[in-house]
């Protein structure tokens, strides 16, 4: 456990030194610039657009980091051979893999927290720019705390994407890993269409296959409740729990498999 944390801190340090956290600057600039422009052009619906944009940006920046750092997590160490001296120390291979994952999770956590804080700050400022009458007409207040639910699920999604990227990183090169991870994300996003496949397709074998895939492939669409929170529609706590449990189960599955693969590897 201690070793996992030790490796994790090192991964975090690497992402900081790789200037990954500069994306936070880009995020903040984007949000502030757009809200300023909207203020100049229109009046009224902007708060919804800012909320949508902010949530989408948190998700998008997070996904980029999860994929592009995730695919190199294990691969880089193997390719550059820094793993040789590392594995000669009293650390087990599974501790290494889990440590790498934890490190990127930590980086993402810091990222999301900072972006959320900036996001709420911008919303709080905008809140002061609108008259009381307009504010009363909004479905949800500007600094609505229930948006945190969407952000929590976004974070769970990022953890899952990271697990997918790390899984591929244990055995394939960065380019292939990136393609596979992004592909899996796109398919997982349209997972629900697999479910209705059987009504459209004639062959029962294909329908059965589609159904099996629906259950097995990661269902990324389930983590997207951005629209719901922006319109202040109810999201039951049970949904949050069930979806988070799904994410954790899938992450555990991926990490276990990644560990098994990594433990059997010959390093040439």
């Amino acid at each position, binding site marked *: 456990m201690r070793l996992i944390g030790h490796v994790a801190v090192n991964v975090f340090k690497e992402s900081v030194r790789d200037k990954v956290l500069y994306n936070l600057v880009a995020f903040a600039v984007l949000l502030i610039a757009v809200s300023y422009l909207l203020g100049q052009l229109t009046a009224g619906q902007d708060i919804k657009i800012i909320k949508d944009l902010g949530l989408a940006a948190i998700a998008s920046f997070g996904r980029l980091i999860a994929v592009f750092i995730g695919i190199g997590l294990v691969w880089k160490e193997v390719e550059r051979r820094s793993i040789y001296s590392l594995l000669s120390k009293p650390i087990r291979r599974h501790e290494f893999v889990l440590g790498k994952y934890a490190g990127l999770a930590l980086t993402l956590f810091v990222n999301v927290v900072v972006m959320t804080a900036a996001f709420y700050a911008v919303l709080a400022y905008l809140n002061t720019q609108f008259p009381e009458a307009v504010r009363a007409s909004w479905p949800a207040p500007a600094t609505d705390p229930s948006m945190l639910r969407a952000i929590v699920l976004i974070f769970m999604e990022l953890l899952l994407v990271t697990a997918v990227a790390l899984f591929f990183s244990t055995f394939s090169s960065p380019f292939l890993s990136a393609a596979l991870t992004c592909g899996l994300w796109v398919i997982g996003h349209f997972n629900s269409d697999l479910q209705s496949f059987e009504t459209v397709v004639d062959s029962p074998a294909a329908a059965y296959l589609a159904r099996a895939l629906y259950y097995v492939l990661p269902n990324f669409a389930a983590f*997207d409740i951005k629209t719901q929170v922006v*319109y202040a529609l109810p999201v039951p706590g049970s949904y949050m729990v069930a979806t988070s449990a799904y994410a954790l*189960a899938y992450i555990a599955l991926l990490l276990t498999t990644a560990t*098994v693969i990594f433990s059997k590897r010959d390093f040439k």
Partner: protein
Amino acid sequence: MSARVVALLVVLMGGVVGLQALHERGGGPPASTTASMLYVRSPEVVKRLALSYKSLLADVYWIRAVQHYGTTKLSTDPDKEYDLLYPLLDLTTSLDPRFNVAYSFGSIFLAEPPPGGPGRADLAIALLEKGLRAQPQRWELAQSIGFVHYWWRQDYDQAAAWFARAAAFPGAPDWMGPLAATTLAQGGNRESSRQLWQQVARDAEDEWYRNEAGRRLLQLDAMDQRDVLQEAVSAFQQRVGRLPSGWDDLRGAGYLQGTPVDPAGAPYRLDSGIVGLDSASPLGPLPRGLAPLR
């Protein structure tokens, strides 16, 4: 791989599948009725944003339009708003002006009155006119405009004018000219309507369009049948001196055998001497203003 690891993997896989099943049973993400939001409605902006992916994006918007129509129609919401239908079709046809199925779809379902559609014949015509500007030689578009005037707005002068214009286009079928003339002379009539719908039932490429035409033809048949039944009711009233209270009276008087059913199989109803469709009949409501050709 040790047995313990295999067992762990099996358990985790089971957990994943089980939770996914749970998610599905719960109906997926919590329902968001206003999940339909178009950020960019301006066709100009979308065209610029689409870069080299215009056709693909047109397909996407088309799929969304059909989905939007379908889910709205099937939802149990009492007041259904098809508010995104026109914008989506507009975007589809702006990105790809030759997306002809979108024009056909819009010409019917934008004009369709609630609950089957938004009842906006004006939007349907606007869409079709835009299409004509992009494809000035396409007679089907002109015919569709005439059709909207004819079937939904009952503006037979306008309809006739558009049919005449369509007849002048290259490739227009031979019956277009006579149709224009008949419409001008006699206004709305069932024979012309039949002709128009039969042409669609024959030539349309999409199944939904053909099905729609089939349904309209059955409606026209129902109107004929209703007229016959209505005559029987009038005859009964003249002879007996009162309105029949039900089909039994007519049967008893010898005007009828059995219970009359409409072409879709639902029985006709007789209320206070007026013959009408059963409320559950898929053919209702019947269009108005179309009299038989004299």
